[in-house]
């Protein structure tokens, strides 16, 4: 009972404290190991240092907090105004920052400096239940299951089997309906015998169009517009000095007059290998810097790519335009499990 009850306003001081979470006066014997409520401590006097604010000069801090809030209000209102006036991204950001940051700063300073500084403490009541409760729970699980399943093990097994089957089968529509099986898609491109080489606008390539050191991205005619076709068909056409061209065995007629065509899809991770250094005669993939020697069957000379870029055999047709003799002799692009490898190995001069 309070002896300090003043008539009009007894409730002046609410002392901030922390009970340990256990019910006041201790609960029914739950067997808490640490019962902090066993001893009731008196409420602290109002001049307890824990209740003082942390600031040494609280008036000054109040002023700072107040000023901070004022700036914050101004900032937030300015944000609103900036929005109404369509003032632009930078103005929105500046006003939002000033508004929110100073409001937050003020509030944080208030909490840090102007509130009872504490520190306060609470007890950790041990979370574990009593040994008796634990055993009771395990007993409930085991014994009740035993009662249910006893002599009905077959039923239990069937139930488990059923749910397990459903779990497996439920994955079918979730996964399989997502997309088609790869089939042979990864092995084929749209390059065929006689495909006309065209650039991305559909213009074919004449033998006089490029000089030594030139580079062009080409596609089979008719397939230069859709992204899915571009993704596999993209081919890089380079003109090198025919005298320095080294062709692999069996590829003597794949690169007429110094024009060589390689798949643009990097054999590392599929980025388009559009970076060509004409003096070094090196195709560099911009993603992870695999380097392919153009003179030498696009053999990788540096970097993580494991295989040369597949080469497209090309020739000049009767009117001087470039066409493909046939498609690539191997799957283009990065490796995958089903990929059989053919056409590898270093080039030798023919």
């Amino acid at each position, binding site marked *: 009972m309070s002896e300090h009850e003043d008539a009009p306003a007894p409730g002046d001081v609410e002392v901030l404290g922390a009970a340990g979470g256990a019910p006041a006066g201790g609960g029914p014997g739950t067997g808490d190991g640490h019962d902090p409520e066993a001893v009731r401590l008196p409420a602290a006097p109002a001049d307890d240092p824990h209740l003082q604010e942390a600031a040494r000069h609280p008036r000054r801090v109040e002023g700072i907090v107040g000023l901070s809030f004022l700036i914050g209000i101004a900032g937030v209102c300015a944000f609103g105004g900036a929005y109404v006036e369509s003032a632009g991204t930078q103005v929105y950001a500046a006003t939002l920052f000033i508004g929110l940051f100073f409001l937050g700063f003020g509030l944080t300073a208030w909490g840090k400096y102007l509130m009872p500084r504490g520190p306060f403490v609470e007890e950790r009541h041990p979370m574990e239940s009593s040994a008796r409760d634990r055993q009771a729970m395990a007993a409930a699980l085991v014994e009740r299951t035993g009662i249910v399943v006893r002599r009905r093990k077959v039923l239990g097994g069937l139930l488990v089997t059923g749910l397990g089957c459903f779990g497996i089968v439920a994955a079918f529509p979730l996964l399989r309906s997502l997309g088609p099986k790869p089939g042979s898609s990864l092995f084929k491109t749209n390059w065929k015998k006689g495909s006309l080489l065209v650039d991305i606008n559909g213009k074919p390539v004449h033998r006089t*169009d490029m000089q030594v050191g030139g580079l062009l991205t080409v596609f089979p005619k008719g397939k230069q517009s859709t992204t899915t076709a571009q993704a596999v068909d993209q081919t890089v056409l380079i003109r090198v000095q025919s005298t320095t061209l080294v062709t692999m065995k069996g590829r003597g007629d794949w690169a007429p007059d110094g024009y060589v065509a390689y798949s643009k899809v990097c054999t590392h991770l599929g980025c388009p290998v*559009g970076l060509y250094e*004409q003096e070094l005669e090196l195709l*560099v993939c*911009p993603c992870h810097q695999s380097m392919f020697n153009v003179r030498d069957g696009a053999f990788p000379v540096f970097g993580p790519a494991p295989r040369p870029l597949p080469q497209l055999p090309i020739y000049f047709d009767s009117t001087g335009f470039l066409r493909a003799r046939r498609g690539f002799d191997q799957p283009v692009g990065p490796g995958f499990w089903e990929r059989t490898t053919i056409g590898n190995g270093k080039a030798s001069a023919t």
Partner: protein
Amino acid sequence: MIRRLTRNRLALPAALILAVALGAILSLSSGAKAATRQAGTGSSTAPTTGAPGSGRHVNLTAGGTHFVNTRPRVTPHATACTKDAERIGYKAPPDSGSPQDSTPADLVCSHGRVVRYGDSAITYTLPPSSFIAAGHRLFEENCSSCHLPTAQGSAVAPSLRGVGPATVDFWVTTGRMPAATPLQVQAQQKPPRLTDRQAEEVAAWINSLTPTAPYIPDVHLKGASLTKGATLFALNCAACHTITGAGDALAYGTYAPSLRLATPTQVAEAIRTGPGNMPRFTGNLSDAQVRDIVAYVTEKIQHPQDAGGFGLGGVGPVAEGFVALLFGVGGLMLVSFWIGDRS
């Protein structure tokens, strides 16, 4: 009649002049053939394939589009102008692609030599022959120590015969030449030592040794399509120079330079001549397409629209991650440091 002619006082001089003219014409045409045979390394001159002057008119109907590839036909009756055009490796329509991309070329000759060609997108001009003498002197002072006085190259510098005026103009106006040291992997761009006019003079002289296209381009940016330029840039240029034109390191110490300081002429020259390790885009890009790329570079790349604030160098997530971690997380950690205790 001959007796009446020979009795004339002017007969002998007239005969001599006629003989000289005929001889000059004959020697010029044979000399052109010799020049094309001699153009060796770099071979930026006329392609060596096919019979020279084998012009052909081809109608390729593909889905309604006609691609006509015409080349000047050099016949014994060809004019000196077209013969010179052939000699310098000029392809008409301008050594580019489909004529439907550009208006018909204007080929301007003077004294039997091509001095200007091009179309409404780009005009290529030869420096006047009055520049040649000054160019020779400049070459001797600035370049001959590495390239030799005959411009035939040495162990430390390549031959300049047959590179064409655009090439020389590019290297000199960007300051890469004269090179600081001849044995760098890649010549650095630096403040140019010769003025633009002096560069053209040197170009004129070198061209006089072995006349070759391309000439110095003058890009007419009006009417350029930035959208097409953006697409072309992303397809052909961004792989080395990055999509924002910031430049980056390439293999074995080479690098693609930043495009921030390039003039329109330099961009066009680089595209057409393929300096250093840069590929050479000739017939596969029309002059209109080159103009679009130049416009894109000079307008968008060099004046990036950084609507979101500071551009952070245009190098993308590397800089962004740095800022996020240092200023974002780091700054907020500092704030936490202020708020919390430190014990």
